[in-house]
């Protein structure tokens, strides 16, 4: 059973890697797949707050927007390379995360959720009204696509050529998004199985007991906020250089809610769940966008379908599709080693 699941996983991965190279590939399908991967990054980032720390964040999209505008503005004004923009956007997102988190993380429960919601609305209002910086509702068009310039390597090797690759079409973005998802997944699983991840889970399970174990609640919540918002900004930076156009209404409250639905659907605190949740909800959204008008319903009724799914999930699987928390911990070599030791002791 476990072996079969493992083979299926590798098969899916191989199919995903090979698909863009197939003659029957479809630009629309590729576009949707890239979109799914952007949301996978967002869902993994958001998962840290409600999933690991038990903090309800309704304003995650604000940081997505901050990342996108950081990338967009740096590109059109300074023509900066994407590879330089990524760390800057992540740092900027994390900076705003700390600026918002430091004064508000002492609030608990619903009060905190309302503050985050207010913050994301603030971001949209700022982007809409500060026309000198953001061009307001017109948005920022004409953002340059990503390019990979390794001329320095050519110079180093003594080749007198310009080694520059500009991303055109969906295929290079598709592979870059895969790399991004893989990196964030690696970071998240490693953090989950570490002193930091355990401190977060302790806060989620019982803040008072966590403090009694020596966890500084406030500091660890601020760290969680910084990491989460940094990942949100990473997705934003990718979005800006992929869609090549950003505007304030791409970062409305609805997006925060959608990402939260993905995390809840997948299972709070489960990293794989965040991935599956994003894939299901985005794919479903696209299917409904086509299917609903054929049934004579406006495409907007798909929001009703999302609501229905959440109600059904709450009724039948209140903890989401994947309920196990700290999953990567169980797969670490140290734990496997310990499991063997305990088994040996039992038989002895």
């Amino acid at each position, binding site marked *: 059973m476990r072996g079969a699941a493992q083979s299926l996983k590798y098969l899916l991965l191989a199919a995903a890697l090979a698909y863009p190279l197939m003659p029957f590939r479809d630009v629309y399908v590729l576009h949707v797949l890239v979109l799914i991967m952007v949301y996978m990054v967002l869902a993994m980032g958001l998962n840290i707050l409600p999933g690991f720390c038990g903090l309800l964040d309704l304003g995650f999209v604000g940081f997505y927007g901050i990342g996108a505008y950081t990338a967009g503005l740096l590109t059109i004004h300074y023509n900066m390379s994407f590879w330089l923009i990524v760390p800057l956007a992540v740092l900027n997102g994390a900076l705003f995360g700390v600026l918002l988190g430091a004064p508000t993380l002492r609030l608990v429960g619903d009060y905190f959720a309302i503050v985050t919601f207010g913050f994301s609305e603030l971001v949209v209002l700022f982007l809409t009204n500060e026309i000198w910086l953001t061009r307001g509702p017109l948005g920022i068009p004409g953002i340059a696509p990503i390019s990979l310039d390794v001329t320095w390597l050519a110079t180093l090797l003594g080749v007198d050529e310009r080694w520059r690759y500009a991303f055109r079409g969906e295929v290079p973005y598709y592979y870059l998004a895969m790399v991004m998802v893989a990196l964030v997944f690696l*970071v998240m699983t490693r953090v989950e199985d570490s002193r930091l991840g355990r401190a977060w889970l302790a806060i989620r*399970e019982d803040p008072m007991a966590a403090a009694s174990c*020596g*966890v500084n609640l406030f500091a660890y919540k601020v760290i969680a906020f910084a990491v989460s918002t940094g990942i949100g900004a990473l997705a934003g930076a990718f979005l800006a250089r992929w869609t090549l156009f950003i505007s304030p209404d791409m970062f409305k409250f609805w997006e925060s809610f959608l990402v939260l639905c993905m995390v809840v659907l997948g299972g709070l605190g489960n990293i794989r769940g965040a991935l599956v949740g994003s894939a299901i909800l985005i794919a479903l959204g696209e299917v409904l966008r086509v299917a609903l008008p054929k049934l004579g319903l406006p495409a907007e009724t798909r929001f009703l379908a999302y609501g229905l799914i959440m109600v059904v999930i709450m009724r039948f699987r209140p903890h989401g599709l994947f309920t196990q928390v700290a999953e990567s911990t169980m797969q670490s070599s140290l734990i496997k080693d310990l499991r063997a030791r305990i088994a040996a*002791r039992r038989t002895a």
Partner: protein
Amino acid sequence: MDAILTVDGVSKRFGGLMALSDVSFAVERGAITGLIGPNGAGKTTMFNCVAGIYTPTDGRILFAGGEGEPQNVAGRKPERMTALGVARTFQNIRLFSALTVLDNVRIARHCRTSANFFGSVLRTRSQRAEERAIIDAAMENLDFVGLGETALSPAASLSYGDQRRLEIARALATDPKLILLDEPAAGMNPRETEALVDLIHAILGRGVTVVLIEHDMKLVMRICKRLVVLDHGVKIADGSPQEVRANPDVIEAYLGKGAAHA
């Protein structure tokens, strides 16, 4: 007396309610001290003041963890108190129930370890060594309370008595000098209580001072060297179990007015 903890005139007020008023007592290093009294006497409030959950309204709490002068720790945050060497268990069990038994104890090593976000992501050599040391320390404490073989089971799957033992293992994993046990025998059957007595003596054997709140009078009289009795937030007696048992105020607090003469 060599006191590890000295509570000096501590009061705690919640609005109009004086949960503790001007309570003073000392805890002898290396002995078992019992904190007893009827329900609502302020025993758990006292623990919360010492453990840093509450800041006393008034008074000093002096803790002499290591060498050097005792320091006033009243109002320190709980994580600071844990780092100083004060650990506790809770009256209504507070485990991280979605996690494994091992993870519950591993979290308690937080205050004695230092890996940060970057160490965790990059898996540096020191981070990996630290993770191994955390597992070893956690297993040692689990074996100490007899839960070593259940290390990888979910904490929620343990029996009630074992959950109490797990809380003790978690508290011990913070390397405390003083451990506060809040009703450790509550809900235990006689056999589990017997094992608990052995465990408490073993904790003492590790050089950890024990303070316990307990309603099981037979247990308290048997294992405590000294008792402190609270009633309505006021200390009414203090001394050896024999002295306290004979104190008319104590009998009155437990059995009502007139009982002392009956």
